[in-house]
């Protein structure tokens, strides 16, 4: 492989990692507050359409991005309603959300299949893009990728350096204790789920605004599920989420390049790669969390457990 090809591949990996990173960070927020949201796939699908629709109608990519985020927050609000108010099972509600969101996205998007929108275009950051290797890989991307560089830092800061983040984490570990400390676990959970939904929505918006620039059905293509898996792989830490997202972005970019280069390997086998790798990543992180640093790698203690009403 020539150096130019490797640089191109790395740049493509970063580009493909961005949407997964947004969604993984969103799911981390939700799970840190104690709510498992398996609906990410549906959230990404629906917000990809919302973003496309608004950008197509107004011509403004930032407005599209905002619409994607809001659509994600709204759909996750539904999850919050079902699980927190009606005490529904989080696993099943999340699955329902995934089915509903993917369906709604396909349904609403069908008339727009094949239509293009401007979205976000790549531009070089002055000076930084002149760096050898790093320049073309990291700094000749689109605005949403630059946003993706800031997102993990922001989520890390929110969770670990603010009182809101402390409240979120307390709610995810032990809601009763959080309530005893004068916090409102229900409100904190709703915030975690919907703020997480906003981030997942931004990830979905990326797909239609920066990834393809045109609308096709099935745009999310399993990325939402990968994000849910990556949260486990990342041990619920934003920093490791970056690593996981890059890994997946790399594999996706690699298999796309291979397909484009016209190898003899059948495309169905290449398409399997990201999914098989997800299972492998889970196996890897499971064995890691068993052997070392078990406590640091554990899920929030109250994850998936609804807050039961007291009499």
């Amino acid at each position: 492989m020539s150096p130019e090809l490797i640089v191109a591949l790395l740049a493509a990996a970063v580009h493909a990692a961005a949407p997964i990173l947004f969604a993984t960070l969103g799911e981390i927020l939700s799970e840190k507050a104690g709510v498992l949201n398996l609906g990410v796939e549906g959230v990404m699908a629906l917000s990809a359409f919302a973003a496309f629709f608004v950008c197509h109608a107004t011509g403004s990519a930032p407005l599209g991005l905002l619409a994607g985020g809001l659509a994600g927050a709204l759909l996750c609000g539904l999850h919050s309603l079902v699980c927190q108010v009606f005490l529904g099972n989080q696993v099943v509600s999340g699955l329902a959300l995934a089915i509903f969101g993917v369906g709604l996205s396909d349904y609403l998007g069908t008339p727009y299949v094949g239509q293009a929108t401007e979205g976000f275009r790549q531009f070089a950051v002055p000076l930084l893009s002149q760096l050898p290797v790093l320049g073309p890989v990291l700094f000749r991307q689109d605005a949403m990728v630059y946003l993706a560089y800031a997102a993990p830092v922001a989520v890390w800061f929110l969770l670990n350096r603010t009182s809101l983040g402390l409240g979120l984490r307390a709610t995810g570990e032990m809601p009763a204790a959080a309530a005893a400390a004068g916090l409102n676990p229900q409100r904190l959970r709703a915030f975690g789920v919907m703020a997480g939904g906003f981030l997942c929505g931004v990830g979905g918006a990326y797909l239609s605004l920066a990834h393809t620039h045109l609308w096709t059905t099935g745009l999310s293509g399993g990325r939402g599920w990968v994000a849910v898996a990556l949260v486990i792989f990342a041990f619920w830490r934003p920093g490791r989420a970056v690593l996981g997202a890059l890994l997946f972005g790399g594999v996706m970019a690699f298999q796309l390049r291979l397909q484009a280069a016209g190898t003899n390997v059948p495309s169905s086998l290449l398409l399997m790669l990201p999914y098989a790798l997800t299972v492998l990543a889970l196996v890897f992180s499971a064995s890691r969390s068993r052997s070392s640093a078990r406590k640091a790698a554990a899920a929030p203690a109250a994850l998936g457990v609804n807050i039961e009403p007291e009499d």
Partner: protein
Amino acid sequence: MNISIRRREIPLGWGALVVYLGALALALGVCAVLLTLSGKPGLGGLVILFRGAFGQGYSLLDGLVKAIPIFLCSLGVALSFRMQIWNIGAEGQFALGAVGATAVALALPGLPWPVLLPLMFLAAMAAGGLWGLIPAGLRLGLGVNEIISSLMLNYVGILFLEYLVFGAWKDPSSFGFPMTAEFGPGGQIARMGPALGLNLGKLHWGLLACPLAGVAYGVFLSRTRLGFELAACGEGERVARYANLPYGFLVLLVMGMGGALAGLAGSIECSATLGRLQPTVMVGYGYTAIVVAWLARLKPWPIAFTSFLLASLRVGVEVLELKLQIPAAFGQIMEGAILLCVIAGQFFLDYTVSLKRTRREDASAAPAQGERA
């Protein structure tokens, strides 16, 4: 005013029917609004949907045909849900079952049906079962979350099916279409109508698998020791291990059996409705099965009824697609909406809500309580 929520001590009984009908009405209402928003008749659409699903004898038969794979997959899924093992891999296990059955049918095309069909079913159940055992083994051995691994294996399984159908198994005389050669006569499940002298449309003998599996499911859960232990494991892994129940064995059993049932469904679908393997065999029955299992609260008779209901809605949506020119995704929206509404509605089966008038100082002393709902 203060809202008080308590766990219900006496079951709701027939009131449950009201809850389910209310949830269904709400979900259908959402769908009608959606139709209206996209410029189609909302209520009129629902009428077309229901006429298409239940209006004619043949539509009911169509529903029954589609209910067969949904019912089988759903039983398998329900088995693992009972012990809080979230197997959402029915779709992939279905695919592997179809692949297993096809491998046998293509290898031994000349055999008569009494030999070939059982062999195909066995191969399908083995393939589906093994596919289900992968997430079970990973969970037991390494603590890998089975939700994600079983779901990822869906994608892998379906792509594997496509790999075979687009590649090694492609029928050379199919003009490039991705499909295998048609199975021999011994590899195809016959329709019921001709043998019974009735006009039963597409209904086929695969239907017999449903009562067999349903009875086995019921007997296993209510009449065997393992069945009771399975129910006890529903309290979670720690409780099960503490009570010295064979937790690991049960996880393998429910995932293996669930996979085998989904695999069987895959083989029946291939053999009876298509007569060959092609990618169109995958229409999401494995996901519908999860919806069914939860709506039916994992009980066998309700699973049978709900399978038929959702299968019929699929038939109705097909009619709606043709008449109103709407995308097929409408069916998915409906299933998702019904599930969301029913999960929310099931709250009223388990809890009672009452309004209590409280004195002001009480309300201010315990603010957290009032925030509950």
